[in-house]
């Protein structure tokens, strides 16, 4: 199959959508498909061979923060050329309502078109105001995918119609095979708790975890909190208790490999996010590496953790509940062993092998729906197929 993928965001900026597009592209290429990815990129940025740069993204205020997007007539023309030269069997755009490449691709595309909606936090006022602009493009989409039940609900309320839920993918084996590192591993007197994420971003929830720390240290004085992620530790720690500061180890931004090794080394992985998550890929990565997960009860997280069956949940934003749940898990090695086991099985459901097969099903369904319809369906053909099926 010839597949054109469109990412609205640059590959050199970290982000869930870009990672998803990259992983999907690489998986499909290994399956023998031809894949071209269109993404914003400088002319001089080194890109993987399957990525076509569409120009430099421009920082503009959008959806409450500054986003790096790509738009304008020159870009629109480039997108048109990419689609024309690609002779794709299917074009798959990501985040089609973000004002960037995907929207332009939707505009230019005449053939089978698939769109994946990643986010659940759209601003409905903007969508409503821009509705007539979007509508013509959205009507071309033959198959809509939402990455979670929440994202699907967003599609249903704001755009009408429906979307098939296909989760984000993870290379489970990459995480499952990561070797633990001795210095990150806990011992009974000094258990290790892992936090991952941009430390200055309050929505990632580090403040909640730090608030829970005095309680945790009172019960388990040897506890070590391993914090991995970009940002300045001094800013978040600020006026914190010196005992808490001593228990925190800041690892800075870590490589993909170290992330996997860190997750497989820790006794518990904590995701105290307070919002802004529509999926929770990190929880699946943690389960893949065999880390017992404790996460805030955001709808997306509860869904990934199967309502608490494959990981522990605490009340989002509630430091006291976090501390209680975390201590309960630390004091219960059997439960942690159980969570490791069910977590691994759960993570397999999100493995790329499974997820990509579902996405390919969408491609084939949409391509089939785009074929010219014969005037009448010959009954003979059906019956012959049926006999084969029955033999």
């Amino acid at each position, binding site marked *: 199959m010839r597949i054109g993928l469109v990412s609205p965001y640059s590959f050199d900026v970290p982000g869930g959508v870009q990672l998803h597009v990259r992983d999907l592209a690489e998986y499909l290429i290994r399956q023998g498909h031809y894949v071209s990815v269109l993404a914003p990129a400088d002319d001089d940025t080194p890109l993987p061979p399957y990525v076509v740069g569409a120009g430099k993204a421009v920082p503009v205020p959008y959806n409450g923060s500054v986003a790096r997007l790509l738009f304008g007539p020159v870009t629109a023309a480039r997108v048109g050329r990419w689609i024309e030269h690609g002779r794709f069997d299917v074009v798959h755009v990501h985040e089609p309502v973000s004002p960037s490449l995907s929207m332009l691709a939707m505009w230019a595309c005449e053939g089978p078109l698939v769109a994946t909606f990643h986010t659940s936090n759209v601003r409905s006022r903007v969508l409503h105001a821009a509705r007539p602009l979007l509508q*013509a493009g959205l*009507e*071309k*989409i*033959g*198959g*809509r995918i939402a990455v979670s039940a929440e994202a699907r609900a967003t599609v249903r309320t704001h755009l*009408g*119609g*429906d*979307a*098939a839920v296909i989760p984000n993918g993870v290379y489970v084996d990459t995480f499952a095979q990561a070797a633990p590192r001795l210095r990150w591993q806990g011992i009974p007197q000094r258990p290790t708790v892992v936090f991952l994420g941009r430390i200055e971003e309050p929505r990632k929830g580090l403040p909640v975890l730090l608030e829970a720390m005095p309680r945790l240290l009172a019960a388990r004085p040897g506890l070590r909190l391993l914090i991995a992620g970009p940002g300045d530790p001094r800013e978040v720690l600020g006026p914190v208790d010196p005992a808490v500061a001593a228990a925190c180890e800041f690892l800075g931004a870590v490589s993909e490999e170290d992330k996997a090794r860190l997750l497989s080394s820790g006794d518990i992985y904590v995701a105290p996010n307070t919002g802004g998550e529509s999926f929770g890929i990190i929880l699946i990565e943690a389960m893949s590496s065999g880390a017992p997960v404790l996460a805030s009860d955001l709808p997306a997280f509860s869904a990934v953790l199967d309502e608490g069956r494959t990981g522990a949940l605490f009340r989002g934003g509630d430091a006291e509940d976090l501390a209680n749940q975390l201590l309960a898990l630390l004091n219960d090695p059997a439960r942690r062993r159980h969570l490791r086991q069910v977590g691994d099985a759960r993570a397999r459901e999100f493995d790329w092998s499974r997820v990509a*097969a*579902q996405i390919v*099903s*969408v491609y*084939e*369904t*949409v391509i*089939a*729906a*785009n*074929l010219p*319809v014969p*005037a*009448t*369906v*010959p*009954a003979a053909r*059906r*019956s012959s*197929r*049926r006999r*084969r*099926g*029955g*033999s």
Partner: protein
Amino acid sequence: MHRWDWIVVAVAVIALVAWYLSYNAARLDRLHARVEGSLASLDAQIVRRAEVSLELANAQLLDPASSMLLAEAATTSLDTSDAAAVQSEVQEHGVDARRARVETELTHTLRATLTPSVIASVVAERGDARDELVRLREAGERVQLSRRFHNDAVHDVRRVRAKPVARLFRLAGHTSLPHLVEFEDEVPVDV
């Protein structure tokens, strides 16, 4: 001079109206084509699911009673699909209520015969069962996808056709109004 001005304005207005009408007509035409395509695809996936179900029934993986139930439901589905094809009614009226009912029944039969414990024991017993079950799962998923995508297309057509301009100028022509296709299609096959 005044008269010429008026003529220019009138021509411009007529051109604008004509453009607007043809734009909406083209849009509606594209949407109708989408509905037609998605319906053909749904029709094909329904047939495919029934075929795979029948294959499974004949694969001697399940006990005879389960196989019989499954074969019955699958054959009914195929017969109903065949009848629809012969009458070439599929394009006209979509997947009608009778077919929807038959498909819901097939779904219920699949759910009843392929419980998680049955699947686990079948897979443990026979190595080749896995492929068969994965095929069924994929066929089921594709029915779900194509039904969802078809209903999306129907939704879009109906919205545009409800617009006053489409109704007033009969932009839809003689194309019949497409209907949503509703039946149960969730078949969890956890291999």
